[in-house]
Each structure stands twice: as C-alpha cells, then as structure tokens.
C-alpha cells in the first residue's frame, strides 16, 4: 500500500464544452490536513466532487486506499471512508438533526426507525470531538455553525476517515471558524485525513500541513506549509502578484447624493430592525458601512433601493424624496445597485449575459425602439462590456448560470456601473468571488468614485471597507455606533464599534 489514502492522477473533466478540470493531481496522506486552494472556478470543488462520485471523470485515475476505482458513486465513496461536507449543506431543513444524521443508513428495530440507538451512537462522536449539537431541533432552527457540525458528524457516523470540507468557513463568523479549526485539529489528531478547500489564505496558512494549488482547472503544484507564504500562494493561484490595497485618492467631495434621514425599517422577523439611522453620501466619496453580518445592513440597503418599506424617516436621492417609491423611480432619480446576492437578486441565471447586461435599461434607446428590441445595439454593447470588464467566457449568449461566481458578479457590476449614475449602492460586491475578480471590482468602484459618483459600500470584509472607503460608518443592532475617516480606522477601533462599543473605543486602539 502506498503512503497515500487517496490519489488522483491526470484527471480530466468536462461539462458540455467547458473544461472544468484539465490536469488534476491530488494526493492525501493519512492524518494530515491538506488544503486545496484556487480562485473560484479553478476546479477545486469539482476535483473533490469527482472523488466523492458526484460526477464521473472523463479520464484519469482515482485510487482510494490502494484500490483503483472505475466508476464511483457516492455510496461507494462512503463505503471506502470518504465523507464530504458540501459548500451548500446537504441537510433537510424540516427534519430533525438526528434524522438528518442517520439518513441513508438508519438503524432499525423491526419495521421502526431505532432512534434510541441512533441517539446513543451520535453521542459518542459529540463527546469524543466536542461537537455540541442539539439532536431534536429541526435544521431550520439551528445556526449555520451548528449545521456544519451536524454535517461533520454525518460523515463520521458513516465511518469516514477522509473528510472533505468545501469552503467551510465561507458561511461562518470568525469565532465559529476558530471553533471549526479546533474540531479539525481534534479530528486530525485522532488519525483522520482532511481535505480543506478554501481561497482564504490566512486560514489555509493557519491549519494546513500541505497545500495544493489549482488554477483554471490545472494543477499548479503542492507545497508544505512551512515552505511557503501567502504571497507565494497568491502568485501560484492567479499567476501574478496582486495588490489589494488600492492607492487611495481623497478627491474633492461634492454635494449630497444620498441623504438618509432618521430611517426606521422592519426586517422579515423583527419589527424595527433599523432604528433611526441617518447618513449621507456625497459625490466623489466612498462611504463604507461596517458591521457584523445581520445587524441591519441588508435592510438598510433594501430600504434605500426600494425593496423594503421604510416605516419612518426619509430617503433622498439627488435631492428627490424617494421614500417608499418604486425601484424604477429610485433608479430614475440616479441610483444604481449591486445587490448582495447576485443569484437571487442580481441576475436571471437562465437568461444570457447580454440579456442580463441590458435588463434594467431595455426600455431605453438604443436597446429598444418603440417597444421593439434592437438586438444589434444590445450585441454591440455586450461585446464592449465583456471586453471592458473581462467577463469570461466571452460568448455573451451563454446563460449566466454557466459563469463562475467572479464572472457572474462582473456582469452585475458591469451593468450597474456602466450606467454612470450619481449614486452607486454596492452591497457585498466581492462576496464569494476570486482574488482576480476582487481586485477588478474594487478598481471599478474606485473609478466610479473618481468620475464623481457617490458610493455606499456595504461589506462583511473589514479589510475591504478600510482599503476602499473614504469615510466609514459602523452599525450595530440597527443603529449607527460610530463614524470616522478611513485614515483613522483600523481593525481594532472598528471591531469595538461593531460590538456596539462607545466611540471612545477608538482611543484605546
């Protein structure tokens, strides 16, 4: 038997005409944490889904514990000790935690499900690895971090000793991520082998033993953590160096573009999610909104952009009172909006890149005349956008569902920014996109500002807020807890305000 529990050699996988993996190589030693990194669309998730038998490979070789595999099904992978925690949790939200854990290999007593035995079995793992979960809650009632622990227990219950985690920290708070890393260390020390898929270099550097890099479906090499650095990994991932800190240019600030006056908004479950918020954005500045996710950022953006009812207060865009007006009226007043969830709000995934690019202006010349679509004008425009924003693939007739996260987001950004509106609302503009796209999207926002737009930037990435904004507003539980110039901001004083601390926190930093 070789030194590896899993070996994947010369893997090729295509979906239709898209080659997702061109030259995939991967191996895993027993008892190591091996990170697989790369930009979105680099093929790292695909590689692991192939190992787990979610799709068949086109060619190549997969060897699990010395056994050369032909076709693999998820059941075969499970039987050979492979477990996978998917990026989107594979949990049935209306079933209980316990039912989800045992699904697929349920203990029985006669005809019945033997839930008592199941409970006893699960307890062992909960205790051994200190993964507290509430077995009788439904999945819809538990937190994301807990759901992830449920997924890990699921794999262990199936006897997994190779556990694949697909971007596990993307959905976690920093505290939950730390908690996850402790669990992974526990698993490793009990002899489990772990594959950690990520594009967050600091996390990878924290927990890996070895790191493999992929770029555009190609294997770019494997290194020991001790022999590499974030800079080296970045170069391997994108083939060049990036500078995420954009040169900041405090330009001339003009008149008020957005004026939010004492606004109160309800969320889906709480009344008064936002309680009396006032803020303004001027022409030629980027105002960053920092805060822990779920403290009213989404509701604030929705209230400004006409997607959510304002209970009290006023929203003024370019001097026009647009409180509770329709989206069309607000856009007409001079607003563009990059929504936080591109798949749900930003794109029609079934429609083409071109259709998505022109969609908000399809009733205007030159895209239509007297209600008739002018397809040649739309094509010309799409051609230009695809080139200018480096959208790949360049065939703008493809549906946006075929794009990687970064390229899909570029479509949204291209549409909204190219209208050159006075006000640009950018909500989580770089969430879930790769480093190359992050750099480009940030440059685009910076350019919009230089050309005189006012930008309201909402982001969960503090580093993004600090490096892009001129002025930063911090919110906590629906209220503004502080405001400062970006030049005086750092992770400490912002962090304090995000926890609801008084403005005095800035002096301690």
């Amino acid at each position: 038997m070789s030194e590896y529990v899993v070996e994947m050699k010369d893997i090729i996988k295509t979906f239709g005409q898209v080659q997702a993996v061109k030259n995939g190589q991967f191996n895993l030693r027993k008892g190591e944490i091996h990170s697989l990194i790369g930009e979105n669309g680099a093929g790292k998730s695909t590689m692991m889904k192939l190992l787990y038998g979610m799709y068949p490979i086109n060619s190549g070789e997969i060897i699990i514990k010395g056994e050369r595999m032909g076709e693999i099904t998820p059941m075969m992978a499970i039987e050979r000790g492979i477990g996978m925690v998917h990026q989107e949790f594979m949990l049935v939200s209306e079933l209980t935690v316990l039912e989800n854990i045992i699904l697929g290999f349920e203990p029985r007593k006669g005809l019945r499900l033997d839930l008592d035995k199941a409970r006893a079995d699960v307890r062992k793992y909960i205790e051994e690895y200190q993964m507290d979960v509430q077995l009788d809650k439904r999945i819809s009632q538990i937190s994301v971090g807990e759901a992830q622990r449920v997924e890990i227990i699921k794999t262990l219950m199936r006897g997994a000793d190779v556990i694949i985690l697909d971007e596990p920290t993307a959905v976690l708070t920093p505290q939950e991520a730390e908690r996850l890393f402790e669990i992974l260390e526990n698993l490793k020390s009990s002899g489990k082998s772990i594959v950690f898929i990520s594009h967050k270099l600091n996390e990878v550097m924290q927990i890996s033993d070895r790191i493999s890099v992929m770029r555009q479906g190609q294997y770019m090499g494997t290194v020991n953590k001790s022999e590499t650095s974030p800079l080296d990994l970045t170069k391997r991932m994108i083939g060049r160096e990036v500078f995420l800190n954009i040169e900041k240019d405090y330009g001339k600030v003009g008149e008020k573009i957005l004026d939010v006056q004492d606004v109160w908004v309800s969320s889906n479950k709480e009344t008064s999610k936002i309680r009396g918020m006032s803020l303004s954005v001027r022409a030629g500045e980027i105002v960053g909104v920092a805060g822990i996710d779920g403290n009213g950022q989404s509701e604030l953006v929705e209230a400004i952009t006409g997607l959510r009812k304002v209970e009290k207060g006023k929203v003024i865009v370019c001097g026009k009172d647009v409180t509770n007006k329709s989206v069309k009226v607000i856009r007409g007043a001079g607003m563009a909006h990059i929504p936080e969830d591109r798949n749900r709000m930003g794109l029609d995934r079934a429609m083409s890149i071109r259709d998505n690019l022109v969609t908000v202006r399809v009733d205007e010349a030159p895209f239509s005349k007297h209600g008739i679509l002018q397809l040649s004008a739309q094509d010309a425009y799409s051609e230009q956008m695809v080139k200018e924003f480096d959208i790949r693939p360049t065939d703008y007739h493809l549906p946006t569902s075929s794009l990687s996260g970064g390229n899909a987001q570029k479509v949204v950004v291209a549409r909204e920014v190219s209208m050159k509106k006075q006000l640009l609302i950018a909500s989580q503009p770089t969430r879930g996109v790769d480093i190359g796209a992050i750099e480009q999207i940030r440059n685009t926002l910076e350019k919009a500002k230089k050309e005189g737009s006012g930008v309201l930037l909402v982001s969960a990435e503090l580093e993004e807020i600090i490096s892009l904004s001129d002025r930063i507003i911090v919110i906590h539980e629906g209220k503004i807890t502080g405001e400062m110039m970006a030049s005086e901001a750092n992770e400490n004083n912002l962090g304090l305000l995000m926890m609801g601390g008084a403005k005095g926190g800035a002096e301690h930093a």
Partner: protein
Amino acid sequence: MSFFSIMSKVLNLSLIYASFRAATPIIYAALCASVTQQANILNIGTEGIMLIGAFTAVTVSYFTGSWILGVLCAMLAGVVIALIMAVGHIKFGADICGIGMGINMLALAITKFLLKAIYDVNGAFSSPQIKVIPKVSIPFLDNVPVIGTLLNNWSLTEWFAIILIIVLQFFIFKTVWGLRLRAVGQFPEAAKTAGIKVNAVKYRAMAISGLIGGLAGAHLSLGYSSQFIENMTSSRGFMGVAAMYFGGANPVKASIGCLLFGFADSIGARLQAYGLPSQFVLMMPYIVTIVVLAISMAAQLRSAKRRQSSLN
C-alpha cells in the same frame, strides 16, 4: 316545520356514518396523493387513476364473478397508469401536472370508449352479475343501540380505509422508508449525498400511489356503489388532492379534511328533502373544496414565511 325540527331530523346518528361513507372514496384519493406528495410529486392524475380503477374493477368482477379479482386488477391498473406517469416525469423530465391532466383526460375517454365497446351502453353500466365488495355485518350489533347504527354493515373497504390511514401514517413517519421518502421530497440532493437512490424512491412512491388510487376506484364502483357510470369519480380525485394539501400530505390530517367533504355532501343530500334546491346540494362539495383549499393555502403561506424568517 320549524328550523329546529328539521335540524333534529337531519342531524342524527346515521349522519355520522353517512358522512364517513361519502368521505371514503375521497380518503383513498387523498392517501393516493399524499404518498407521492411526500416525494414532492403532485399526483394530479389521482382522478384518472381512480376512474380507470373503477372501470377495471367492475369489468373484472362482471366477467369473473369475483370481487377480489376485481379489486386486485383495479389496483394493478392503477400501478400501470401511475408508472406511466412516473416514467414520463422522472425519466423524461416532463411536467407532472401536464402528464396528470393528460391521464385524467385519457381515463375519461378510454372508459367511455370501452363502455361502448364492451357493454354497448352509454353513460352507465350495471348488472346483477357484478359482484360487489361485501359488507361486514356483525349480527349481535343489530340489537345494540348507537354502536349498531354507527358501526354495523360497513363495507369491507370502508374498514380498510381506516386501517390504511393508520398504516400509512406509521410508515411515513416511523420507518426508514418514510424518512427516506420525506428526505427525497424535501431536499433530493441531500438524500443523494446520503447514498439514497432518489429515483428509486420516487418510482416506489408512484407505484404505491397507483395501488391506492386503483383501490380508490374499486371502492367507488364496487363498494360505494355497484355499477360503473361515466365520469363517476366526478372530481373526487381532485378533492382528494385538495384534502392532501389541507393535511400537508399527512394521512391523518388529510383524512380529516375528507370527512369535512363527506359531511358537506351528506348534509346537503338530507337538506334537499326539506326543500333546499338541488343545485345548491350539487354545488356543496366544490364550495367546500374551495374553502378548504383557501384555508390550507393561507396556513401554508404562513408557515413558509416562518421558515423563511428563521433562515435569515
């Protein structure tokens, strides 16, 4: 006659049995729809499966003189129809509502055609040679008041309906098969990664649904009545689907919805004797269907909202 004296004549003990009796064909239909709904397949073809079952039951019973064979063949016919739907939907990805409506129209036309071709009659076929599902008579109950009126002389399939409700409830919520069925219905990807063969589960659900749908038809033509009439299901299949929605595909709750239909049906029939225009009586089941659906849809919207907010 005063209102109260009418009411006291209408609302008597035998109304309870009458309601249940009127409800049983709909209960079978609701169970037929519930099984597939748990796998997230809306079996709108329940009506057609039932009608074909009813025709098959009468025909086999007429020619063989055996009600048991009639019922079994009806169930078999139900499975065949359900599997046709399943292949179209699962294998070829056709819209289940489209196939279901197709099956309903086919059932209506083919039974009409066969009625003419085999028996050379239009509209209805009855004959003393049709052997019906026997009634369970318990002689000593004849003399027991209340219980006798309530429980004696039920048709065998009426008793079986109660057993089936309980059995399905148990299987859906307490067994491995049920857990997998619900998982497949709610999140097929999760079931697949858990190593469950999603399509096999769906095919099985459709086949079981066909068995129950065929039985529903046999009960209608051999238990509830003793003849075949063109379009004799008269939307009972759809009412079953409505009751399934009302009960959220839960067999017990869906059956309670069916009792509501049965109650409306039999009370209407009685009121007719006291001068309620027959048009109103005929409208009754449909009005109740609309009301029941409206209530259950509103309840569903509320719970969907609750679910959504808990995800945020």
